[in-house]
């Protein structure tokens, strides 16, 4: 059995990259070990834990269930792109900090990206809706309560600053 390599061109957090990629390289591994954007974490490689969640053209997906070659021509957003240009935490990150929504921090990148997409589409969620949106991200440390509080606060902050 043989594999092949393809040249791909993609944008991650607004930066353009051109790289060759082995056909079978998972997008999660490509981001972490080829582009050295190690903020996206790998937890299961079968699409369940959600730690690897990133945005593909603004939509939350599991990067462990996508091949790097499939990202050709697309715009990706990862945790490294969230902070403002001055390095300050954005509203969602800041809310996580204020509400102690992270402990070990390993599931956090996936949660931040999932909720970035979710809050954009649902600016005024109820707690139940937030929990549903979070249900595809496993956390073993926090018991979720503080994450839920953080997201409700982030939603409020985003509503206050949005046009």
């Amino acid at each position, binding site marked *: 059995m043989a594999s092949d390599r393809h040249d791909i061109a993609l944008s991650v957090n607004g930066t353009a990259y051109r790289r060759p990629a*082995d056909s*079978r*390289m998972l997008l999660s591994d490509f981001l*972490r*070990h080829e582009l*050295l*954007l*190690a*903020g*996206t*974490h*790998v*937890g*299961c*490689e*079968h699409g*369940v*834990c959600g*730690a690897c969640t990133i945005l593909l053209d603004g939509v939350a997906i599991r990067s462990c269930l996508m091949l790097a070659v499939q990202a050709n021509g697309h715009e990706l957003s*990862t*945790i*490294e792109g*969230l*902070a403002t240009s001055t*390095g300050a*935490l954005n509203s969602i*990150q800041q809310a*996580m*900090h*204020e509400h*102690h929504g*992270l*402990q*070990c*921090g*390993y*599931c*956090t*990148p996936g949660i*931040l990206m999932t909720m970035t997409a979710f809050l954009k589409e649902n600016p005024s969620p109820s707690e139940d809706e*937030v*929990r*549903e949106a*979070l*249900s*595809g*991200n*496993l*956390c*073993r*440390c*926090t*018991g*979720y*309560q*503080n*994450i*839920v509080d953080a997201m409700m606060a982030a939603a409020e902050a985003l509503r206050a600053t949005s046009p």
Partner: protein
Amino acid sequence: MSTRYFGAPVKRNEDHRLLTGQALFVDDVELPGMLHVAFLRSQVAHARINSIDVSGALKCEGVVAVYIAEDLETYWQPGPLLVPPPPIAGITFNLRTQVPLAKDWIRHVGEPLAIVVAESRYLAEDALDQIVVDLDMLPVVVDIESALDPSSVHVHDDLGTNVSAHVYQSKGDYRAAALRADLILKRRFHYEHGISSPIETRGVVAQWDARGNHMTIWDTTQAPVFIRNGLAAMLGLGEHQVRVIAPFVGGGFGPKMMMFYPEEVALPWIAMRLNRPVKWIEDRLEHFFATTHERGQIHDAEIAVDRDGRILGVKDVFLHDTGAYNPYGLTVPINSQCTLLGPYLVPAYDSTFTAVFTNLPIVTPYRGAGRQHGVFVMERLLDLVAHELEIDPAEIRRRNLIPSDAFPYKNEIIYQDFQPLEYDSGNYQPVLDMALEAIGYAAFTGSEQPKLRAAGRCVGIGIACYVEGTGIGPYEGAKVQVLANGKVSVATGIGTQGQGHFTSFAQIAADQLGVDVRDVDIVTGDTERFYWGAGTFASRGAVVAGNAVNEASKVVRQKALKLASDAFECSEDDLVIADGKVSIIGIPEKFIRLGELAQRANPMRGAVKPGTEPGLESTQYFGPPSGATANGVHAIIVEIDPETFDLKILKYVVVHDCGTVINPMILAGQIHGGVAQGIGNAFYEKLSFDDQGQLLNASLADYLLPTALEVPRMELAHTTTPSPLNPLGIKGAGEAGAIPVGPLFAQAIEDALQLKRKNVELLEIPLSPSRLFELSKGAA
């Protein structure tokens, strides 16, 4: 000393790096020329190995080396005994430990057989497919009762038995107690815990610098110092030649405290052999087999009570599944044995356990570390007695609580820290009262429940009490140093897996030294930065390392005051230390910054006096004589769908006492997380092995971790009974949330479904809707 930070919900110093994806986890380590390792693991649970042919693997693209046990030569040896059995009279203990690669025998699914080193993990896994293993299959031992049959095959054929250990402990005279009893109630309980399944699996990176004669190992371990010492010895290196770094670790929960895992032992050897850095990252499938579990116990327990439900004695005989090897000694079953006593007066206790070898992965502590099993037995016995004697379940607990004037309370039997179990301090009544108040016990049982029941809803309430031994020795240390720029650097030997050490320890130092908590930089888990220590386990980090940080900070504080008093030519009593400077009380304009004092403490001229040291630093150690005992009460209201038996948690309350609290925000997070794991253990997580030792649900799709939809909002409250065993008065809290959830669910579900009316008792954990259906099915 002014307390600005201690006790405050200070936001975490470590968050920024974690929130921006800049924190280093082990798989983030990238080194030039790094190779990747994959392990061939046994697909069967018990076999004799005839041969392992790796020739096909060696021909695969990108493969640099393939190793089997024989290749390790004298480096191959069974792992050390990590925790010796406690000094209990008459103990039987048969030590059998894991090996770096299986040689001659396979004893559980997942045991490593061969190692492939290749240019990528992808290529390494390709090569695994080409390795040919010739085995003679053997009968498999998975059931701990039949494992003790004389006819059973032996997991260790040289042992002649599947007994790993046999321990008997007692206090008082149970036989006499039973004779006096008005009621003796006897039941069989099955309790299974589960796997830790942190979101980050394990991993090791080893880098050997042949010219510098130095080994660096990044490892997701909870015990970097012990790993450094052990690996240095195994590799024939001095301890100073080995640096172990536990970087940011994505959850530990106990199994990352297991030491000298095959992969930990192999990677550094490979790095030296190949003179290239090597990386192994456990994938999720491996995690189900390669990282330790906590599994099941079967208890035949009886309780003797008087007619008022007061405990006269408890007798318990239990079996404990230890897995294929027992490197961690008896910590888990000893915890079960001791924690069963709970917050209750138990005048007589007769407890025997047999730890049994099985052809299953190794069992070592996982958050709760066997306490769950003991608490389940006691709490269920009390519930059953309460039902029998028609006493309210909360009331029967109240009647048996150790009174507040009885501390320190001697339970006599030996605990995991090798000391006779002694509860240092506690005040249990108010904790129970607060929990009952918070859950609305009287209103619920009195009026809400009857109303809801009349409307056809199955709602039930549960309450469970526990005591948690925490903060055991041996010791930890900390080095605190004021830097020339005025910031403070603190290093300690333990590692961090999310507990917030970078903040809680900074709070302690910041209070002593009068600096901003954000100006305290904490280093944990790097043996180059701190030499001595034990590790993060058994809810001891804050207690032991926290106190060490405090001791070291106090000394530095004194040094700063002395230097300043010399400079100002005044008494130290005239000085105040705040805002990063030492000033004369009442004359704020006469100050010296701490950084300046640090510089002065490292003179370019003059001399350091005998008996003193340069620098504004100190290294101090703290070793408690025994563990500090925390306690708590959980309460729950559940609703069960009478048709599907699915469960919804309507309310969850935790009242907890862990002594003085460093950071209530971090503490709450620990409780939340523990409860979530407890909920998983009680109702969702179950390791399903077949009779061949195959795990049928080895994926996160089928091993069910609770999500944000299964874990409810929790209400937390605290009381504070400081520990007399350490100057800060703190007790551990890391495991508390996880411990009583099993019996809590059992009690509440029994109540919701009114099972006792149908003569159905819930004597097992985990439960599930299907299991509840099956248990209710045959009943009246």
